[in-house]
C-alpha cells in the first residue's frame, strides 16, 4: 500500500533524506523509528504530497505521489505535529470542515463526526473550541480528523509525543484497532517501546537513511539472542548465582548488584529453566524472579549506531 524508493530531500545544506526506501503492506503498521532530525517528518510529508522529493519515487494506495497528488489525498488521512487543526473551531466544527473538504456529503459528514467523537470519547468536548482541549484530547481529535474520509491509508506523525502514559496506551489501542480493521498505518515515533508494541515492521532511520529494518523480533535477534535473567533475594549470594548460571549459559554472565540480577545468554529454551532452578537451589540461592528476556529496541539502536537514540542527532526537522 505504501512504497517509497530512494527518497532524497535537502533543505539547503541540510540533507533530510539520503536515499530512503519504505514499504508497507495492506493492513499493517509500519513504524518509522528514529531520533529528532532523522528525517521522519520529511518522509511523511513527501508521502502525503506536502513536499516534493529531490529524487526518488513513491506510491500510496497504488497512486504515484508525484504524478497525481490529489488522487493520493483522497486516499489518505493525516494526523500529526505539522498538520494541525483549527484552534478556534470546536472539535465538531473541525471534523465537519475537514469532512466537507474531503467532499463527503453533508449528512454523512455529520454522522461520521458524531460517531468518531463518541468513539474517541470526545462527545462532551465536541462543542468546545480546540484551544480548551488537553494534549490527549487533541491527539484523539487529530486521529478522528484523519479518519473522516475512511481512508485506506493513514499517516501518523509522532501520534503520542507529549502524552501521559494513560493517553499513550489509549492511543496505542486505537491505532492497533485501525490496523485490525484493514487500514494501513505508517507512523513515526521516537519511542522504541511504541514501535515494539505496535509495529508489524520497523524501519530505523538515522540521518536520512534506513540503518535497520525488520520486525521487532528480527531487529532484536540482530543485536543478540535471548538471555536468561534471574533476580535473587539476597545480594550476598550473587557470586554463587553467577557460577551456577555460567555453567548453563553460553558465555559469561552479567551481574547487576543493585538490582540483585544475574543474566547469561542462552541458545535455546530446552530444559534451561529447570536446570537453572535446580542449579540455583543446589547452590543455596533463593530466587525472586526468573525468565527469558530479549533485548529492548533501545539496545538495538545502541548496537546499530553505536550511540543511544536520544543523542543521535541534533538537527531539528
Amino acid at each position, binding site marked *: 500500500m505504501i512504497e517509497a524508493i530512494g527518497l532524497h530531500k535537502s*533543505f539547503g545544506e541540510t540533507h533530510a533524506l539520503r536515499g530512503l526506501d519504505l514499504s508497507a503492506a495492506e493492513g499493517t503498521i509500519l513504524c518509522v523509528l528514529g531520533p529528532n532530525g532523522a528525517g521522519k517528518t520529511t518522509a511523511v*510529508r513527501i508521502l*502525503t*504530497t*506536502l*513536499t*516534493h522529493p529531490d529524487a526518488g519515487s513513491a506510491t500510496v494506495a497504488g497512486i504515484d505521489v508525484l504524478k497525481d497528488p*490529489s*488522487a493520493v*489525498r*483522497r486516499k*489518505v488521512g*493525516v494526523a500529526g*505535529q*505539522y*498538520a*494541525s*487543526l*483549527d*484552534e*478556534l*473551531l470546536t472539535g465538531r*466544527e473541525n471534523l465537519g*470542515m*475537514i469532512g*466537507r*473538504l*474531503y*467532499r463527503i456529503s453533508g449528512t454523512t459528514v455529520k454522522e461520521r463526526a458524531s460517531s468518531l467523537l463518541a468513539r474517541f470519547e470526545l462527545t462532551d468536548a465536541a462543542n468546545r*473550541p480546540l484551544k480548551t482541549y488537553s494534549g490527549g484530547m487533541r491527539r484523539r481529535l487529530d486521529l478522528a480528523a484523519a479518519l473522516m474520509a475512511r481512508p485506506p491509508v493513514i499517516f501518523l506523525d509522532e501520534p503520542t509525543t507529549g502524552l501521559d502514559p494513560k493517553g499513550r496506551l489509549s492511543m496505542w489501542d486505537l491505532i492497533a484497532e485501525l490496523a485490525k480493521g484493514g487500514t494501513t498505518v505508517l507512523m513515526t515515533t521516537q519511542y522504541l517501546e511504541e514501535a515494539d508494541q505496535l509495529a508489524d515492521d520497523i524501519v530505523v532511520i538515522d540521518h536520512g537513511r534506513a540503518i535497520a529494518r525488520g520486525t521487532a523480533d528480527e531487529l532484536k535477534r540482530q543485536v543478540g539472542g535471548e538471555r536468561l535473567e534471574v533476580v535473587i533475594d539476597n545480594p550476598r549470594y550473587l557470586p554463587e548465582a553467577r557460577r551456577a548460571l555460567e555453567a548453563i549459559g553460553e558465555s559469561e554472565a552479567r551481574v547487576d548488584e543493585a538490582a540483585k540480577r544475574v543474566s547469561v545468554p542462552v541458545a535455546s529454551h530446552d530444559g534451561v529453566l529447570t536446570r537453572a532452578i535446580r542449579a540455583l537451589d543446589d547452590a543455596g540461592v533463593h530466587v525472586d524472579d526468573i525468565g527469558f528476556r530479549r533485548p529492548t529496541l533501545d539496545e538495538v539502536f545502541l548496537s546499530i549506531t553505536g550511540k543511544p537514540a536520544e543523542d543521535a542527532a541534533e538537527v531539528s526537522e
Partner: protein
Amino acid sequence: MSGFGWWLRDSWEMVLRNLIHIKRTPELLLDVTLSPIMFVILFNFVFGGAIGRLVGVEGGEEANYINYMMSGIFVQTIAFAGIYTSVLLANDLQKGMIDRFRSLPMAQSAVLTGRTLTDLLRALLAVAIMWVVGMLVGFRPEGGIVGNAAAIGLMLLFGFALSWVGVAAGALVRTPEALQGIIFAVVFPLTFVSSAFVPTDTMPDWLRWFADRQPMTLVMNEVRDLTLGIDVYDAELAAVLWCVGVLVVAFPLGLWLYNRRTTQ
C-alpha cells in the same frame, strides 16, 4: 459537481471558517469598526474646522470638510483592511493549518479565495459603519443611488485587489509581526501622500506629481465624484484601470508565491 462548483464550495467553506474566527475573537474586527469610526470623528472634529476653512475644499456649496474627507477615510480604511489579509494568511501559514489543507483533496486556491472573500466582507462592513457614522456627523452623499452604489463597488474592487497584494505579501514574508511593520511603513505614507485629507495642490511639485498619479488618490477622487454627485475629478477610467491592473498582476502572483511557499 464541476471543478468550478467544487472550488466555489471549498471557498465558501473557508469563508465560513474565517467567519467563525471573527465570531470567537471579535477583536479581529477592530480595524474595520472602531478605528474607522475614530478616524471619521477625529478628522472631522479635530481638523475639520481648520483644514476646511484653509483649503476651501471642493464638493459642496459651503466648504463642507466631511464631504471631502469621507472618501479619503473610506479608501484608507479599505486599503488597510485589504492589505491586512497578509497578516491573517501569515498566521495560518505559521500555525500549520495550511499543511492540513494541503493534505486534503480540496481546491487549494480556495484557501486564498476564501481569505480574500472574507476580507471583502470585512471591507463592506467597514464602509457601512463609516457611512452611518459619517452621516451622523454631517456627511451628505448626494450622488444618488447609482452614484453611491458605483462608489461602493469601486471601493470594494480596490479592497479586493489589495487583498491579493496581501496574499502575495503574506506568502513572501515569514512572520505576521514583520508584516505589521511593513504595512505600517508602506501603506501609511501612501494614504497620506494622496488627496485623502487635503487637496494635493498645496504640496511641493515633486510630491504632488506622485500624489496625483498614485492609485489611492485616483480611487479617492472618483469616490468623491460619485458620492457627492459632482464631476470634478473625472478619474473613473484611471481608477478602474488601476484596480483591475493590480488585480491582474497580484492574483496570479499571489497564487504562485503561495504555491511556492507551501510546496517547499
